[in-house]
């Protein structure tokens, strides 16, 4: 039985456990991790104690870890290092959901498409839909120096350093960073705040140092800090001195006070750049700031293509959908597509007939029902760009909103 037939059979018989097991195994063998995950989720609901289901889950986790070059199955974070913290107590367990649950799912889903070896992502700019201006900017300001370090060294410039990516949630910041790592064939290390923050005095600082040491040892490396405002919050907002020492350690690591950061590209991503301590924006730290806007029409088309892949569909007018979903983030598009699927499935349950394929009109309805989550972000961002735009750091937001800086 081929994969498409299995999928069709499982679609028509969603409670058939043996069939779902077959499908999950076949999806795994075809490296369709997202589809395998979906089949497994259904299986875990239907037969959570089945030993084969447990084995399948373990295989999926291992495969994911292998593909992302990490040893921690439930996150894409690097393996716990390292002699320096080996005496420290066990580190907190990373959460299974991102900080703002659900909003960055699209990044995770797209990341599953990548095939990496030894932590080097295979995602490149070609895999990032839209964002042409941002990509051009990155080419000239970041990639060129990294690809030609000798040229820059002759002029006393160093490749690497810190880049701050900011923008509304669910707009592909981590995918962009991963693509940069893919472009320069660098090792990818993604860091969540749970891997750094620790309740015991001094441990957070140790964890940070260990991470940087590992990145330096394996250079060229892209060190990616998601929700960086949690680690680099404005010290005026901090009520505790413990947080301040973590910030000081972070600044010291960025400055390369103990060892050179040559070949280490540090990425910080945040939805709230205004809550970052100003010290992080000084030269040599996160001195290159990039705005990742919501996907443009071309980007939305690309994302929709990915989201609709493997779903039964008629000829879809992607241009029309992209036009109607102005201001949508990748996560919003995903919500709209899933909403359309739910509508069809509910209808099928009500009528007892097989659900029809997704059509443009069903998707347009779903897009109409979905609210663009980026609007609230832009309302706040507009205030910061208008009233606290020191050194033009938010000019990109003003320009995106059509306001003259």
């Amino acid at each position, binding site marked *: 039985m081929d994969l498409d037939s299995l999928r069709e059979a499982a679609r028509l018989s969603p409670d058939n456990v043996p069939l779902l097991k077959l499908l999950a195994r076949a999806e795994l063998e075809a490296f369709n991790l997202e589809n395998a995950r979906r089949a497994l989720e259904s299986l875990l609901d239907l037969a959570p104690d089945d030993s084969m289901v447990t084995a399948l889950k373990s295989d999926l986790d291992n495969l994911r870890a292998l593909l992302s070059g990490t040893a921690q199955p439930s996150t894409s974070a690097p393996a716990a290092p390292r002699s320096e913290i080996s005496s*420290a107590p066990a580190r907190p367990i990373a959460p299974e959901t991102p900080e703002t649950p659900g909003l960055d799912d699209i990044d995770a889903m797209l990341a599953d498409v990548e095939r990496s070896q030894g932590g080097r992502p295979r995602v490149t700019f070609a895999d990032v839909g839209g964002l042409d201006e941002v990509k051009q900017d990155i080419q000239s300001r970041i990639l060129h120096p990294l690809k030609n370090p000798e040229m820059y060294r002759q002029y006393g410039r160093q490749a690497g350093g810190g880049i701050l990516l900011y923008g509304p949630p669910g707009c592909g910041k981590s995918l962009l960073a991963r693509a940069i790592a893919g472009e320069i064939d660098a090792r990818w290390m993604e860091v969540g705040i749970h891997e750094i923050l620790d309740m015991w005095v001094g441990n957070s600082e140790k964890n940070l140092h260990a991470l940087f040491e590992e990145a330096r040892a394996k250079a060229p490396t892209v060190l990616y800090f998601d929700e960086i405002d949690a680690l680099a919050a404005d010290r005026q*907002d*901090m009520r*505790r001195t*413990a947080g301040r020492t973590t910030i000081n350690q972070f600044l010291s690591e960025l400055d390369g006070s103990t060892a050179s950061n040559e070949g280490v590209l540090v990425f910080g991503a945040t939805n709230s750049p205004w809550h970052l301590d100003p010290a992080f924006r000084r030269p040599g730290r996160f001195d290159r700031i990039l705005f990742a806007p919501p996907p443009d029409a071309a980007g939305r088309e690309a994302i929709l293509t990915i989201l609709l892949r493997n779903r039964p569909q008629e000829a879809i007018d992607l241009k029309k959908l992209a036009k109607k979903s102005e201001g949508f983030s990748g996560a919003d598009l995903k919500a709209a597509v899933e909403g359309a699927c739910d509508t069809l499935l509910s209808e099928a349950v009500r009528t007892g007939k097989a659900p029809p394929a997704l059509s443009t009109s069903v998707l347009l309805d779903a897009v109409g029902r979905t609210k663009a989550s980026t609007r609230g972000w832009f309302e*706040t961002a507009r*205030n910061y760009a*208008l009233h606290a735009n020191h050194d033009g750091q938010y000019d990109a937001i003003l320009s995106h909103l059509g306001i003259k800086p």
Partner: protein
Amino acid sequence: MNDWISSEPAHQPAEASRSQAAWRRTEQLLAQGRWDEARAWIAKVLAADPDDALQLLALAECEFGLENYEEARRILSRLKGLIGPEAILYRLESRLDLAQGKPRDAQRSALAAVSADPADADNHVALARCACARQDWEAMESHLRHALSLEGEHAEALHLLSIAQNFQGRTDDAQETAHKLIGLDPESSTGHSVLGWASLHAGDRATAENEFRESLRIDPTSPGARAGLLESLRARNLPYRAYLGWNRFMNGLSGSTRNALVFGLLIGMNLLSRVRGGMLGALASAAVFLYFAFVMWTWVAPGVGNLFLLASGTTRRLLRQEETLSAIFVGGAFLAGFLVSASVLMTGSAFSVYGGGALLFSAIASSLWIGNEHPTGKWVYAAAAFGVPLTMLATLLGFTTWGRHFSMAFLVLTIAGSFRVLRR
């Protein structure tokens, strides 16, 4: 080193560490007012310990911040069951009551907080907030003075005191209190904001503008500072300043005095309008005209003020969508109506009278449409703002140029169309 004072114990419970890290992040998010994100983190900790009172209180704060008042109330009653009648719970309940428009309940909750802990300045500030909602500025000041006698550097008490003094017309005192607040924390956004308001009320527009800009630099999301900045920019125009002065005067009065003044003026104008002939009649007519012009001005002044801001490239970008709408439909219609009406002096045409009147009517209806929060109200006033003047103009044109039958048909169609829109 003893284990119990060691920073690295032999065994660290991962769950506790995770909770601690989550709480650290939650504290950050709460301080930054990022309620929805904080809520997600609190949920993670509560999953491990659903009866953690500290987390539940933080969750109630989040729900309050997100305007989920009933959910916040539900958490509060659960907390009362867990930790008993603590003052902090009554304080939050009082804020909930105020937010839900229940000033008497709010007062009762605040009094319960004070009786639970009379030595806590926060509880007296809660009482002051209730007085503020009643616009009882003297009582508000009295509660705040009590709070400040307990805690001299209570930032919120100083902030509210400046507001209370401002509304009582004591702008010098209000400025002094604001300076005290800024002295405690130069990066206090509220301090600069209240100083801006006090300066604006004192007529010092330049200082007010600077203070509001400073407040917004520190906290660009401050609604008070934003409103103040727009007011100070609009107040560059003399007619708008007259409107602000009137507002300030009325705000300084108690509710009953204010009502007595409004009804007194209305009766006075009614009597004056009956005076006919001679110099007295002319003066009476002028007074009645000025009165109605002023009443109309209070309806349309914000829209006209926004129109001036819209006209300037530097201030245009500060306007939000509804403010831009009011600039165009209220300010624009008023200005056009005024010009068209004035043209009657040169043309003597009936068109000028009717046309001007229609536009002025449209300006008032638009101000009600844009400021209205009820969907039906919005439709009704929008229909009035566009339908009535258009019908008047078309009828006039029809009567004067195209014939009565056509204009009557148009009138009927417009009214029928308006009903259809309203029904939808």
